[in-house]
């Protein structure tokens, strides 16, 4: 009679994994620490305004067991570390000050809680690689924004403090409704990192991010436009452009970067052509006829004419 357990001991592995996972993920009890900790009452003796401001933010909602305020009267010291030495000496060097720490040291405090969900990909992200600190953008005690506790009133103001080029592009004639307040940088990007390229928030590729809103362009189509299938940014500048439809160059010149052949693609569309009212340059140029340029579902649409 064969013994039970012949072959791969899947049941043992499964049990071991279960034990491991439960042990690993079981959080420590939210008990108060005692060594070197003085408690919130001592902190707000001098820092009353910070204490009041904290209570008005999510960090101060003690009902949430994940917040600093849930830590039995040690809301301040959960982030700033033990305060005994600072309380005794009054010196600012004797307490953890985020503006005085290196970016990664400061971030470690925040990441001790903010390491899931939208923040799961922070480590290794572009901002992490460039020594951006959480406190570069966020303020725990004196935020100015309606959400996300930013140091500025809007998300765009925060981002454009470093990303000047993109801030300039948003003001160009062809733009998304960012300056009108209908979109902001975080409509597309996740500043805390993401699984997508360019810290894009949605999807697994640049195109998947774009078509999350422009879903009519998603396809897949019966006839695909090769340049657009792989990368919308081959033709469009998502931050802004001086051209119609946010194209990186005017039509037909843009199309002529890939289409040479013979006939009308390699024609010089100069003022002479304009004067004759050529529909290859007036209006929307090539797209006057090739209107299904993102792809066609018509059996006769292999040239995107139908």
């Amino acid at each position, binding site marked *: 009679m064969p013994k039970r357990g012949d072959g791969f001991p899947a049941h043992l592995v499964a*049990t071991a994994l279960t034990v491991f996972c439960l042990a690993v993920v079981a959080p420590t009890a939210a008990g108060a620490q005692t060594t070197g900790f003085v408690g919130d009452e001592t902190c707000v003796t001098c820092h009353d305004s910070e204490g009041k401001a904290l209570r008005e933010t999510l960090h101060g*909602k003690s009902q949430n067991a994940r917040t600093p305020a849930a830590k039995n009267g040690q809301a301040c010291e959960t982030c700033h570390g033990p305060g005994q030495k600072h309380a005794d000496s009054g010196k600012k060097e004797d307490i953890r000050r985020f503006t005085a720490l290196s970016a990664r*040291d400061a971030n470690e405090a925040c990441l001790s809680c903010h390491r899931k969900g939208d923040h799961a990909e922070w480590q290794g992200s572009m901002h992490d690689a*460039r020594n951006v600190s959480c406190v570069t953008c966020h303020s725990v005690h004196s935020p100015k924004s309606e959400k996300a506790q930013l140091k500025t009133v809007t998300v765009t103001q925060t981002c454009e403090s470093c990303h000047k*080029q993109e801030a300039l592009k948003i003001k160009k*004639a062809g733009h998304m409704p960012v300056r009108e307040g209908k979109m902001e940088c975080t409509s597309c990007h996740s500043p805390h990192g993401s699984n997508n390229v360019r810290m894009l928030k949605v999807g697994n590729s640049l195109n998947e991010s774009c078509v999350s809103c422009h879903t009519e362009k998603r396809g897949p189509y019966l006839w695909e436009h090769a340049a657009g299938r792989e990368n919308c940014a081959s033709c469009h500048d998502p931050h802004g452009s001086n051209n119609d439809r946010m194209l990186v160059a005017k039509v037909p010149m843009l199309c002529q970067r890939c289409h040479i052949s013979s006939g009308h693609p390699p024609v010089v569309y100069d003022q002479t052509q304009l004067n004759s009212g050529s529909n290859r340059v007036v209006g929307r140029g090539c797209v006057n006829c090739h209107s299904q340029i993102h792809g066609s579902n*018509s*059996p006769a649409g292999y040239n995107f004419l139908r």
Partner: protein
Amino acid sequence: MRTTSLMIAAAVLLTASGARGQDATPPETTPTEFAPVNQMDIGLRGTNYATGSDKARYMRYQDLRDGGTVDKFRFSKETTSYGVGVQADHVGYLDQRFFGSYTNYGTLKTSFEWNQTPLFYSETTRTLYSTASPGVLTVPASVQAGLQAKTTTLQQALNAGAAPFDLKSRRDVANFNLLYTPTVALDLNVYARNTNRTGTQPMSAGFGFSGVADELAAPVDTRTTEFGASSQYGGDRAFVKLAYDGSFFRNNIPSLTWSNPFRLTDSPTLGPANGRLSLWPDTNQNTLSVSGAINQMPWHSHATGYVSYGAQSNNDPLIPFTVNSAISSPALPRTTADVQARITAMNYTFTSRPTRTVWLNARYRQYEFDDRTPAFLVVNSVSYDYTLAPGVNLLRDPLSYTRHTFDGDASYSPVSFIGVRAGYTHEEIDRLNRYSASTSENIGRLSADVTGTSWLNVRGVYENSKRVASPVDPAEVLADGEQPALGQFDIASRNHQRITGLVVVTPISDLSFNATAGKIKDEYPDSYFGLNSADNNVYSVGFDAVPLENRVNFGFEYGYEKNTALQTSRYAAHVTSGFPPTFFDPRADWYDNSNDTTYNANASVEIVKVIPRVDIKVGYDYTKGQSTYLYSLSANTILAAPVQVSPVLNEHNMGTFDALYHVSMHLGVGFTYLYDKYTVNDFALGPQANGLVPSPPTAATPSIMMLGYYWMPYTANTFWGRLSYRW
């Protein structure tokens, strides 16, 4: 058996202890209420336009029509146990937004938003077409008969019969989100989003080389429904997340049929009475993903993993090859599109900080787009609904591709406020049915960041990459009628260099100066035809001053960006067989040197209660864009000298003045003045562009019938008075 039982018992015990930790009771408090800050603005708005102003372009994504306004409604109530928020903006207008949220701290977070975004194209558009039924646009039969019999001209018909209409569309988004946290370690999230897009948009279609391209007000009536759910379980040490995302696009108008103004009846040789094209098909996308992370490993190490698998499909019924009844429409290869794709994505990272000064990161990313559509062979087709195109013999090319990307970075911080980083990326992309079957790119980068000091912030990065495309088969390119030396810039070999820098100096806490500079240089060494090079230069300088904290601040910023590009082509006339005589003749080469420059300056001043009870904000923004396209020919050219097109100019001036007088702690009286001036000169899209437009007539031999949607100037002065109530 005994071992298994013991392990299960141990698991239960550990779970129990963990559960006790998770359910640790927070300190006892009785719910109390904090002072809420609520607000609502009620006002009246009016705009004065200069004669001939393009009101639609002024508004574009906003509804700034004259009338009463209810704006910036904010209501919130917070206690120690829950918070409620309600917001409303631009109530009653096409760009209105409503938002509500409820948070039970530590347990539940839910929100709902309704957001409308209009897109105003034009209020001066006119069209001969009317909507007979959804997706069917017709011109009067009398017009078709007259044009067919040549008893009238298209311009005459337009002048007499084109009806005015507003060209606009709107996007309405309803967004629901719920996050439930039954335990500290478990997050359950569901979301649902519905996006409706309705209205019209400009879309042109033609009837062949000898016909007129008709610019139509294409109807838009689409819906995208998305929903998803995820569960994330974990704590400080690790977490696992499972997620599903579904997206379903539906188009209520799958095709567009429009009258041919020149034909009342179908003809097999003289053209159709109607044309028909396929609009965006219904599509589905379903994605499953699993991700996780392990934290608190030795040396401050952290690892994440992400895998997703998705399926896209489009199975719309296919329209016939033609709507021209005088042509025998070829048999369809199949009755539905049956287009399918599978998408696999992975992302793995490992980050470590073995010492306080050293940081290491490695990432591997893979993305595969696998087009699994069954073969679709078109033997015979129809061109423009006009003529039968026999012997096309065109097989659909699936455009599958796989991208592998490896990143490695190492950062060294000798002191806390300095970080220098070196990084390397290698990317391989394999493609199906492109001229280059694969590309391989190596990217090196160096960056330096000085941060964390109160007076100086410096950031700089240099990047150098070389992309090599696999050899192109000249025979394959020639078979398509293309030049073998063509490099399609998205996949061609490319040398890329980028350098950017940012400096912020804050000599005193109330004053900071900033400057940025950047340069990108792209060269395509193997591309004789197509894009040869593209450069980008960008600079900005500015300052911010806060002489009185929370009372006075002002700032100024100036930015400049220049994009240049060089592309090469060769003129060759169309021939019915073989290659044109100039196809291989370099004397027919021509070049286009494009230059796109943007200047921007903006200034702002904010003065808060320096004048008692008065808040003042003043701002001015100036943006100018100028684009030139300069044609040149080869030294021994056989082509006629080109007549250069005029530069394209966009210039935007916008000034705002806002003052709020606080009558009391609860009531304020406000006034806003907005000055907005836009000037434009566009050879293709400005009013001077040639084309058939409804009155007045513009062109002698036009080949496109336009709606009259152009880039037009405007000058607008908007005045807005409001009462602002706070409670």
